[in-house]
């Protein structure tokens, strides 16, 4: 073994162009495998930690997944709104600890604007029941106050006290601007790794106020921002959804049932954990498929390696005969080829880890911005190391093919090649 190791290394080095291509192919497949695996596990974690401590999410009658998507992930839109009266009814229920309204539909330079109550900063929990923390400032106190998610502030460069405007509808290019409604940045949240980072939070009454006079879809007449009608609720009496925390867990199912069967308005109430699980099962099929594809790419990488080594054997019969003449056993020849395969696989794994880490690090901001996926690039975990071991193992198994061929050749050739 010790005698073969330098020989295998030097022999590979002498064929470094083809060897490098082999390593590259294996590295790419390993990087793909690691990347898919990383995104898979981080997506799952990211998912599960998006919301916690909330017992029920309530929205207009519809699918639980859709409700989860628009109320928590801020993806897509609600087709129907919920009345403020229903929200108030639930909020005042004796078993309910707190209820947080969520009103969506506006945006600020591509980021969604969410209207809610001050209670949001007190009761909303994410990850392991962590409360929202402020990096600067505090909750909104005035009708014109806005609180920015960490990423909104970072990517738009807003600081405390800056004025921002809100556009009706979504998307950066939204042309119907509520430009007469300048908001002031009152607080900036610390990063959470959840969709909260990408949202502008204002009072639910402010959302209503900016829409005063827009009922027809376009502004009727410009005017100053007026506080909405009494009752603290929004003027048009509609919100998008609301989050509910119960006083006791025992009451959750009962309340969910009561809401789903509520006669006053068609509502859907879902438990976030259940909905997240359902959603993950849906997405999980796709990412298992991805993992299978990545695994196949690894196999293709090794098929390439086998082909390259087998091809090289023909021109290396001389080399093998020389080794045999100085006393190498056929087993040595076998070991030499096997070592080369392991070398290639190991180099491929190392390079693959590097490529995966670099591209994840480079792609992390994009993933976070575009997909709300927060990958943390750290030291390889136990699972990654298992992948590495498996790939090197697969390399060794693949190496058996050329090793066996070389073994047979060296037995047949002996010291001379009969060309």
């Amino acid at each position, binding site marked *: 073994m010790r005698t073969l190791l330098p020989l295998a290394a030097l022999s590979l080095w002498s064929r470094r162009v083809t060897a490098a291509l082999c390593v590259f192919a294996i590295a790419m497949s390993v990087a793909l495998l690691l990347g898919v695996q990383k995104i898979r596990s981080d997506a799952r974690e990211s998912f599960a930690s998006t919301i916690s401590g909330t017992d029920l999410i309530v929205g207009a009658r519809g699918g639980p997944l859709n409700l989860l998507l628009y109320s928590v992930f801020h993806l897509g839109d609600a087709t129907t709104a919920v009345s403020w009266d229903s929200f108030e009814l639930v909020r005042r229920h004796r078993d309910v600890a707190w209820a947080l309204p969520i009103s969506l539909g506006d945006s600020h330079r591509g980021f969604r604007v969410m209207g809610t109550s001050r209670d949001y900063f007190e009761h909303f929990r994410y990850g392991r029941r962590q409360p929202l923390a402020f990096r600067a400032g505090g909750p909104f106190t005035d009708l014109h106050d806005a609180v920015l998610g960490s990423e909104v502030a970072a990517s738009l460069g807003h600081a405390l006290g800056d004025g921002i405007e809100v556009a009706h509808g979504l998307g950066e290019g939204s042309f119907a601007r509520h430009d007469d409604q300048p908001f002031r940045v009152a607080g900036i949240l610390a990063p959470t790794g959840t969709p909260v980072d990408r949202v502008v939070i204002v009072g639910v009454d402010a959302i209503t106020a900016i829409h005063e006079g827009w009922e027809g879809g376009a502004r009727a007449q410009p005017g100053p921002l007026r506080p909405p009608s009494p009752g603290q609720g929004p003027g048009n009496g509609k919100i998008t959804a609301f989050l509910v925390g119960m006083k006791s867990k025992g009451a959750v199912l009962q309340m969910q049932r009561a809401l789903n069967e509520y006669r006053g308005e068609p509502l859907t109430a879902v438990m976030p954990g259940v909905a997240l699980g359902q959603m993950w099962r849906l997405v999980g099929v796709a990412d298992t498929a991805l993992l299978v594809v990545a695994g196949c790419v690894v196999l293709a990488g090794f098929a390439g390696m086998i082909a390259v080594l087998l091809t090289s054997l023909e021109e290396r019969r001389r080399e093998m005969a*020389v080794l045999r*003449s100085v006393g190498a056993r056929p087993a040595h020849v076998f070991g030499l080829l096997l070592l080369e395969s392991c070398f290639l696989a190991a180099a491929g794994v190392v390079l693959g880890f590097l490529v995966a880490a670099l591209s994840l690090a480079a792609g992390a901001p994009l993933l976070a911005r575009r997909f709300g996926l927060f990958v943390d690039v750290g030291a390889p975990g136990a699972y990654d190391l298992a992948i590495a071991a498996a790939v090197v193992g697969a390399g060794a198994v693949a190496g058996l093919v050329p090793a066996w061929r070389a073994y047979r050749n060296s037995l047949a050739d002996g010291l001379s090649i009969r060309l």
Partner: protein
Amino acid sequence: MGEAAIDIADLEFSWTPGAASLDVPAFTVGRGERVLLSGPSGSGKSTLLGVIGGVLVPQSGTVRLLGTDLAALAPAARDRFRADHVGFIFQMFNLLPYLSVVDNVTLAATFSRQRRERAGDLRAEARRLLAALSIGQVHVLERPVAQLSIGQQQRVAAARALLGRPEVLIADEPTSSLDAAARSSFLELLMQECAHAGTTLLFVSHDPSLGGYFDRRLSLPDFNRARPDAEAA
């Protein structure tokens, strides 16, 4: 220690059943003897060398090398025996292109502890042999082996075959790619080193002009009763 270096009796070898390549009733090379073996191509010379090297196993007969019956050894032990006691030089392509000149020479000791111990300081001994074969110049040693001339490559191969003083040196047409001047200087140096180390030399060539360098000249067809055709060279 009175045994012959190479002692073959009633040897039969065939690549394919029924078509014998070798049928040698008796063939002996004494210790320290230098023998030139000639014969037309296809007469089974390379096969004979493979049998003597212990790489090819004859169907019948005995091959004794330095008194040891090769057939009595397990394949791995035969390989070790070859590593310890036999040096080889081939017609061409003797060197591993990815090793330096000196590493190509010390390769001989890689699989043999005995030759490693006999050689002492491997690299120093390699340099001494290279110098004795007059290719010890630094600029030659540092060149990639692929850039050496054929004559230089053959000398490096000879240095490897001689490293650690194996008792037997087998050379399979090592001079056939060399021009006349290179050939005679190669042979002179090789003879000198063999004499110096007391090495038994079995040298295959179909160049009759080399006869003067050897103690004995043999033609394979004279003692091989088999008449293999050209394809089983």
